[in-house]
C-alpha cells in the first residue's frame, strides 16, 4: 500500500504526520521522503544511512568534428538548451529536460549523451522501519526525476509512506500519482483552507481516495471542517494547537516518543486509512485497474 501525505500549503505538518505514522507502525513500513528540495524526515527519524546513489540525467555532448551546424538540434529543443550561431554550438545543461530530441534528430550522429547529476537518493533504516529520501542538488531545477526514482523503490509487501512536497505542480503530482490513498494535512486558517482546496482539485484529477488531518486544531476558524463536510471528505485525525507539540517538533523529536498517548491515535489513523482503501477495493470501481497500471 502507498499512502502519500500532501498538503498544498507548506508547513502544515506533512513531515510530522509521515514520521509519527511510520514510527507508530514500527515495522513493515517504509518512509519515502519525496520533498527533495527540502527533505526533513531524516531529522526526526535519524536513520542509519547505508547506501547513497546519484540521480543522473543525460545532457547532450556535441562532437564538433562531426557537427555540420545544421541547427536541427536547436530547432527541436523546446527548452532553449542548445544554440547554434554560425559555426559555433553551445549547450545550456541547466535548461535541458533530457528528452533526447537533439540526439534523435541529429543527421550527423554528432550528439552523444553525458551525465548530469540532479541529486542523490539515500537509503537506510531506523530499527525495522525502512527509510528512503532524495535530495536535489542545490542550483538544479529538475526535481521530478528524483521523485520518480524514489517511487521505483516502493515495496509492495510494506506500507509505503510518502512525504510529498508542498504545492500542486509537477513535483507534487510525481509524489501522489499511483498512490492508494492521499492524506491531506491542513491547518484551520484561510491560507490552509485555500491551499487545501487546490490540493483536493489535484487529487480529483488523479482520482485517488483521500482524507484530511487537521493540524493545529483550535487555531483559526471552522471553515476547513465546513468545507470537508460539504465535499464529503472524511476528517481522520485532529492534532491540537499545543505549544508542547510545537516545541517537541522544534527540537526534531517525534510526538509519539515524547507524548506516548499519540501512538494509539496514529495507529487509529492508519486503521481508518486501511478501511477506506479496502472498502474501495471491494467495490467494483474501474479506476482501480488504471491506478494499478500507473503505480508501476
Amino acid at each position: 500500500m502507498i499512502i502519500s501525505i500532501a498538503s498544498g500549503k507548506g508547513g502544515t505538518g506533512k513531515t510530522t504526520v509521515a514520521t509519527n505514522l511510520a514510527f507508530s507502525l514500527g515495522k513493515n513500513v517504509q518512509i519515502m521522503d519525496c520533498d527533495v528540495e527540502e527533505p526533513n524526515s531524516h531529522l526526526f527519524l535519524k536513520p542509519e544511512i547505508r547506501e547513497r546513489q546519484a540521480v543522473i540525467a543525460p545532457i547532450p555532448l556535441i562532437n564538433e568534428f562531426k557537427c555540420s551546424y545544421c541547427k536541427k538540434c536547436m530547432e527541436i529543443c523546446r527548452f532553449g538548451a542548445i544554440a547554434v550561431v554560425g559555426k559555433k554550438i553551445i549547450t545550456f545543461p541547466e535548461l535541458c529536460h533530457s528528452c533526447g530530441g537533439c540526439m534523435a534528430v541529429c543527421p550527423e550522429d554528432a550528439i552523444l549523451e553525458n551525465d548530469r547529476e540532479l541529486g542523490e537518493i539515500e537509503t537506510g533504516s531506523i530499527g525495522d522501519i525502512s527509510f528512503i529520501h532524495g535530495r536535489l542538488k542545490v542550483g538544479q531545477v529538475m526535481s521530478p526525476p528524483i521523485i520518480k526514482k524514489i517511487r521505483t523503490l516502493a515495496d509492495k509487501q510494506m506500507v509505503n509512506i510518502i512525504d510529498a512536497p508542498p504545492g500542486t505542480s509537477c513535483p507534487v503530482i510525481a509524489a501522489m500519482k499511483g498512490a492508494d490513498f492521499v492524506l491531506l494535512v491542513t491547518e484551520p486558517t484561510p491560507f490552509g483552507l485555500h491551499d487545501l482546496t487546490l490540493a483536493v482539485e489535484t487529487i480529483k484529477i488523479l482520482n485517488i481516495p483521500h482524507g484530511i488531518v487537521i493540524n493545529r486544531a483550535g487555531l483559526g476558524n471552522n471553515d476547513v471542517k465546513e468545507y470537508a463536510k460539504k465535499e464529503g471528505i472524511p476528517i481522520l485525525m485532529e492534532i491540537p494547537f499545543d505549544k508542547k507539540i510545537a516545541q517537541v517538533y522544534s527540537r526534531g523529536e517525534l510526538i509519539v516518543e515524547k507524548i506516548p498517548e499519540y501512538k494509539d491515535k496514529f495507529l487509529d489513523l492508519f486503521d481508518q486509512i486501511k478501511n477506506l482503501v479496502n472498502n474501495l477495493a471491494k467495490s467494483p470501481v474501474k479506476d482501480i485497474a488504471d491506478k494499478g497500471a500507473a503505480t508501476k
Partner: protein
Amino acid sequence: MRELVILSGKGGTGKTSLTAAFASFSSDMILCDADVDAADLHLLMAPDIQQKTDFQGGNEAIINPDKCTRCGLCIELCRFDAVKSTFEIDPIECEGCGVCYDLCPEKAIDFPVTTCGEWYISDTRFGPMVHARLGIAQENSGRLVALVRQEARKIVQKNKIDLILTDGPPGIGCPVIASMGQANAILIVAEPTISGIHDLARLAQLAAHFKIPAIVCVNKYDLNLDQTKAIKDLAKEKNITFAGVIPFDKNFTESMIQGKNIIETYENSQASIAVRKIWEKVMAQPAMNIERLI
C-alpha cells in the same frame, strides 16, 4: 527600481503574512505574488482585478488515431513514458518536448499550445499587484513566476515605482530559482526548529550559488530560543545579515481571518513592532539601496 523577494525554504514560516505586513510600510511599491502554485497573498489584499490574461505555458502532444499507424516510434522515443500502449498520450506525464510530434513519420501527432493558468494585474489598497494562478496539475511554474515578475517590472517602468515586494514560493527548486534572479536581496523567513534551520541553510546555499545577497529573520522565535540562537550563529558564520526576530502571535492568524495584515489590525502589538524593525533594517542594507536596471 529595487526588488526584495521574501523566501523561506521551508513552507509555512510566515512569508505571506510578512510580505503583506511590509506592504503597509511603503507607499511606492508594487506587490508580486511569485508563489503561483499555492498563491495566498490575494487573501490578505482583496485585489480588484483590472486585467486577466491566459498563461500559455507550453505545448502538449495529442495523437490523431485516424493517421496513426501504431509504428511505435513515439513510444520508443518518449523519455517520459507519456505514450501509452494504446497510442494515447498521458497529459500528466507529457513534458511538452515535442520529440514525438517532430519525428512521427505519419505526421499523426498534433502539438497545440496549452493554457496552464492565468495571471492578473490588480489594484489593492496598498498599490498595484501582479499575481497568478497556475492551473491544477500543470507544469512550468518557473516560467509563470518569471512572467509575473517581468510584468511587475513593466508596470514599475511605466509608473516609476520604487520597490517590488515579491512573495516567493517554498523550496529551492525551479520556481524559487525563477523568483530570485535579478533581485536586490532575498529575505529568508526562518522558524526556530531543526527542520527550519536545515531548510534555511539550503536556501542560503542557493542564494550564494546565484550570488544574490541574503538577509534572515526568525518568526515565532520564542518557540525555541536555542534554535533561534543557532540561526543567529549560522547567519554570522555564513556572513548573512540577521535582521531580527518576531514573537509568536495568534494575531497573525486573527488578521488573516479578517483578510488584513497585522499592522492594520494590531499595529501596536509586540509582533507588529518587531516586523517594523525588521523592515527598517532590511531596507537600510546596502544591497537594498542599489538601483537595478529593468
